[in-house]
């Protein structure tokens, strides 16, 4: 894992991954305390994919995400306070309280509208790629979506269009079905696909396709960087399937902190990993995995890890304070923003 990814980048990734992890843990707490309604989806366990992939993008690029968007939004640099405020339906939220957890969006960072309709993200992203291609400015669009999106026909249509028109789109499929209970077993719906190798689908459409270990930050970064370069040079779309084993907490229906509040001492060797989630702590938790590797740098690295974590915790605690202190939107503003009012350019 070490090879390939520059040290600064690895530390940068860890910082973002920790921020996401603490954010998500806080979301569970806020939900438990009854601060918001509606179901929600967490990015815990997939930080190792979204963070390096998004880090590989440039400022001019576009992105599209799904119901499982928190990690993507934060990885791109959105304000966690505005993120939590949105989840709590506050006026200061990213969407002014109109979107909620499923639709967090930060247009100024290049995000297209965040669709909670499965298949929405991937097909809108092809539109993003179309815009990039029309502008001829070397920009690209990255779609970050789940494996379930490939059950929707529109995803297939969108892949076909992207391939036909050589659009600069990186299709990043986060396959988190391994370990998921699935509908049939009473869990959350997950992959119901006859395909035993999802890459055969983009391949059938002539799309360059690759599979990576989604817990391996360096591997994801390398794959994303290569895909982005390919897209920028006009060679058409790339499909990446990142395997991200399902976090135990995302089952059953409502997320729960099945693996506890992440304890970074498990990465530095200061704490044990025994218990029912040993496998998770040792192999699949991408935050622990990256931290463990960086910790190999010695005491200074271990200190740096805790410092990063402390900073992340602090930032998220402040974010939560901000969100909780923020006002709810004024009821009558519900009528605003149905239509944009700008005079046409």
């Amino acid at each position, binding site marked *: 894992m070490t090879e390939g990814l520059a040290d600064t980048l690895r530390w940068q990734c860890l910082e973002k991954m920790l921020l996401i992890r603490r954010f998500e843990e806080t979301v569970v707490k806020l939900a438990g305390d009854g601060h918001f309604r509606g179901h929600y989806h967490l990015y815990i366990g997939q930080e190792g994919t979204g963070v390096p992939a998004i880090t590989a993008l440039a400022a001019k690029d576009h992105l599209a995400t799904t119901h499982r968007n928190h990690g993507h939004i934060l990885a791109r640099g959105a304000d966690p306070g505005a993120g939590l405020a949105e989840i709590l*339906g506050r006026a200061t939220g990213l969407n002014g309280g109109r979107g*909620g957890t499923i639709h967090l969006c930060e247009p100024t960072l290049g995000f297209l509208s965040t*669709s909670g309709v*499965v298949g929405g993200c991937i097909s809108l992203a092809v539109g993003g790629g179309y815009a990039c291609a029309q502008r001829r400015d070397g920009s690209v669009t990255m779609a970050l979506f789940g494996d379930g999106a490939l059950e929707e026909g529109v995803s297939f249509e969108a892949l076909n269009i992207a391939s036909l028109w050589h659009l600069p789109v990186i299709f990043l499929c986060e396959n988190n079905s391994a370990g998921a209970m699935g509908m049939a077993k009473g869990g959350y*719906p997950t992959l119901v696909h006859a395909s035993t190798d999802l890459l055969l689908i983009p391949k059938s459409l002539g799309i360059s396709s690759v599979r990576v270990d989604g817990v391996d930050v360096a591997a994801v970064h390398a794959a994303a960087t290569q895909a982005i370069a390919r897209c920028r040079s006009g060679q058409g779309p790339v499909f990446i399937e990142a395997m991200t084993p399902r976090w135990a907490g995302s089952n059953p*229906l409502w997320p729960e902190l099945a693996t506890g509040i992440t304890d970074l001492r498990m990465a530095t060797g200061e704490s044990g990993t025994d218990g029912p989630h040993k496998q998770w702590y040792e192999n699949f938790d991408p935050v622990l995995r990256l931290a463990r590797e960086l910790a190999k740098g010695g005491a200074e690295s271990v200190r740096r890890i805790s410092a990063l974590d402390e900073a992340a915790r602090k930032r998220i605690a402040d974010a939560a304070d901000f969100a909780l202190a923020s006002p709810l939107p004024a009821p009558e503003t519900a009528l605003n923003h149905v239509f944009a009012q700008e005079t046409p350019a």
Partner: protein
Amino acid sequence: MSETRQSYAAALVDALHDGLRTDPRVSIIGGYVLGLGPQRTLTDRLKQDFPDRVFDPPTSEAGNAAVGVGAAMAGMRPFVDLGTGSFSYLAWSQITNEAAVAHYMTNGRLSAPVTFHLLHGVRGGGAAQHSQSPHAMLWNAPGLEIAAPSTAADVYGLIRTALASPNPTLVVSHAKLLGIETAVPERKSPIPFGRADIKRRGRDATVVATSLMVHYCLAAAEALSKEGIEVEVVDPRTLVPLDEKTILDSVSRTGRLVVVDECPLRGGIASEIAATVAERGFRYLKAPIVRVTRPDVPVPYSLPLENFITPDPEKIAAAVRCVLTAT
């Protein structure tokens, strides 16, 4: 006679179970008919008792709907659950341009007796994409029967009728109805389509509503009653066929009409009922018809915003007071 009460969700599952039991052609395509809420485990006995006839399909609404329509054309009676109401948009062509037109287009030689079901409405934090009510739109698709039950007895009876109907049928359940308990007869039975139910008698104004809005209207009626205003609450129960007669009869007695619906205003259910009465019951009207609906805005996530745009008993009561003073 001791009154039994049952939740909407439990009665819905009873209807499916009885449908599966009494007709081997019935099967269910859809793994979460009651959504992901607390009632969802009620459907477990369907899978247990009819393991070969209850299917968890992929997230492929168009494909799932098409399978239901095609199977119906081939003689089966599938019940296709489309999930959250707006996911039916992905199956729009299958519902409106395949199922609804097949009987007509074959000169009556073939039929497509599929039942579609979905969870509609402003559910609380569902935001724009998960709070929709597609049945107003579908009322403009001739060939489809549409039921929008409001109580346990009605959802049981209307689903049984839908499963037995030779036509494609849509049954919509408001997400907020699932947990609501209402009285049910000892033996629940099928309810014929096209028969409105007067949920409350009153002389001063007619209020027409379906689905969850019936409950809000009854609450408003209760409140108004304390002011001496007696509202008649008419629940058409099915939009297609529509029991125009019961609505017009009521308006002929009260002279005033409020139509309540959670769909957006333009092209909504309230508009259709208002237009029908403006055309066929004009002479009964003593005041303008008033529509109480969601304004034409997408549904926002945050509670105060959501509440602001959603019809509720207060807004309904205010509208009734308004039609009583206006002339």
